[in-house]
């Protein structure tokens, strides 16, 4: 297995490198060719041509584009993501790491909630299929899924903080109880997707021969459902969980904006609006690499969980 697996991972990584290089060049050009640069937004009303020229020379923005890009890549390989012009030349890592921690903390809670609710809901809907309960349950969660965050992030605080007074709205850190409301607002819309996936998976597994065999040999219904059906139906969840991993580090923009949480998504928005070249590029690259890694992890995980699936280099990239 190790030989085939190593070959597979290497092939995928090799395919990924040119695509990520292409994306980095595109985003780089997109930012540099825009008629505005970080110096414009930094100086704003106090724009002075002479100062601007000196600042551009300092950051190297006055040099030809390909030199700038090569310089960026050179620094990147030394682990240097550049500096943030909006944050007095703090390095990109210094700016984004604390914000990523905040977002990741919230997202871990949200993810536990999404899967912790979605999986049982999906199993239950599958078990009661054929009755009115199944479409009712799925329909309910689809309705929750249909409420845009910028509506729920206004109505929920109004209801639970202003009317009922159960929570406060100030941000006091990720581990403070005040975080409960934003975590619920950002996770509940995701339950429908997980529930539908789980439901479909349970129904598919229920039709398998070995489930019929388990029933035929007289196992209790509970045992059949728990250890034969649900156990195997959880397999597609590996993909769902794996694909949601990169999201842990990118945050939820509207929740962070409307609840005033200093997370990475809010930072991203401000970086884009301030044309903070290195921060935007760093975030895009970070997100892309995480996604690729998550996909490879999923494939490897399948190999371990399900012995029927063998990854070979021949399967192709």
């Amino acid at each position, binding site marked *: 297995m190790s030989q085939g697996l190593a070959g597979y991972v290497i092939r995928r990584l090799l395919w990924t490198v040119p695509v990520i290089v292409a994306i980095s060049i595109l985003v780089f050009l997109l930012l540099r060719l825009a008629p505005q640069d970080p110096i414009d937004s930094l100086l704003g009303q106090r724009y002075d041509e002479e100062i601007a020229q000196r600042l551009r020379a300092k950051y190297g923005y006055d040099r030809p584009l390909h030199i700038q890009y090569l310089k960026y890549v050179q620094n990147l390989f030394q682990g240097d993501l550049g500096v943030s012009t909006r944050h007095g030349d703090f390095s990109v890592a210094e700016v984004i790491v604390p914000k990523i921690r905040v977002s990741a903390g919230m997202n871990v809670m949200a993810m536990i909630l999404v899967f912790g609710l979605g999986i049982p809901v999906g199993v239950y809907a599958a078990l009661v299929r054929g009755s009115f309960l199944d479409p009712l349950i799925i329909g309910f969660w689809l309705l929750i899924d249909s409420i845009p965050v910028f509506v729920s992030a206004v109505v929920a605080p109004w209801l639970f903080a202003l009317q009922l007074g159960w929570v406060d709205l100030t941000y006091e850190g990720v581990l403070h109880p005040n975080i409960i409301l934003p975590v619920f607002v950002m996770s509940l819309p995701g339950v429908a997707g997980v529930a539908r996936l789980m439901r479909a998976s349970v129904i598919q597994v229920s039709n398998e021969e070995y489930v019929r065999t388990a029933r035929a040999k007289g196992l209790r219904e509970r045992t059949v459902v728990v250890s034969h059906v649900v156990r195997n139906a959880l397999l597609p969840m590996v993909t769902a969980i794996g694909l949601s991993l990169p999201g842990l580090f990118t945050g939820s923009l509207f929740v962070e904006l409307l609840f005033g949480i200093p997370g990475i998504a809010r930072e991203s928005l401000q970086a884009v609006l301030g044309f903070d070249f290195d921060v935007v590029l760093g975030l895009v690259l970070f997100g892309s690499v995480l*996604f690729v890694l998550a996909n490879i992890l999923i494939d490897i995980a399948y190999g371990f969980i399900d012995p029927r699936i063998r990854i070979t280099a021949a399967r192709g990239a």
Partner: protein
Amino acid sequence: MSTVVAPLETGDLGTRPAPRYRFLRELVRKKIAMVAIFLITIFYLAGILAPWVSTSDPNYQRLTIEERLDTPSSVHWFGTDGAGRDLYSRVVYSARTTLIFTLVVILTGSLVLGLSLGLLAGYRGGYVDAAIMRVGEVLSGVPTLLLMLAISAAFRTRLNDVAFWLKDNTFLGDDARAIVPFLIIVGAALPFAWIGSARIVRSQVLAIREQEYVLAAETIGASTTRLLVRHVFPGVLPIFLVGISASMAGIAGGEIALSYLGLGVDPSTPSFGTLLGNAGGVRTFQEYPHMLLVSGIPIILFFFSWNLLGDALVDIVEPRTYRR
């Protein structure tokens, strides 16, 4: 999703309907799907007929104390906003913005790009396939909203120059100011709009091209174009529609999110994004709840309908996992 679905009658083969109509017949049998289609139709009709069903110019401002932030009444059905604009008319025109945006993105992104790239990848295979799918994979991995924001922000700074140039030099006239930002957000959505449908189409093509009737057609010398158009495409179509209805809420949501942040359509163009943005935060909602409700409820129903329709369509296309 009716409560109990009877198993398909398979005994009498002679009366079985042509498979082409099976999709439609089953759709009509599903009550929830029909309700969803009904709501979507109303939404789109409101958008198409906006100039006729609106009661006022959506941008006409009434800056008197009586008419600003007015609650719903017989004159202003949905009330008025902070600038005294009639919210009912603004909602109707917002539906129009959503309609045009989703139509343009679906036609160009999902249909033209997604379908052709998916057919190409599935039918050609090899490096073409690998290249297309890898690009899609990485594109679906970059933080979508962040990149959409970057594209939108990068092109916006020259927006006025372009708009004025278009106004002076083309037939567009005053519409130029609305069209340019609109094109920018379409451009920001396109790189992501093709991925889902290309993936669906590709996997369907891979399955269908191994079917005997396709192999038979190939054997008797049907051309690639004929194979794709006559044999592969009709088989792909139902699941392609499922994909579109599933991605609809996301596409419409992209425009709304960008407009909410002020990076979407021109401020003079009514959009659910700007409406919800104006409806503001918790305090505004407490004082003037009608602003958020009248713009929020239509868009929730719109998303809900597409989600329900998508769910029902999956039922029809993949009966194995759903009906039992």
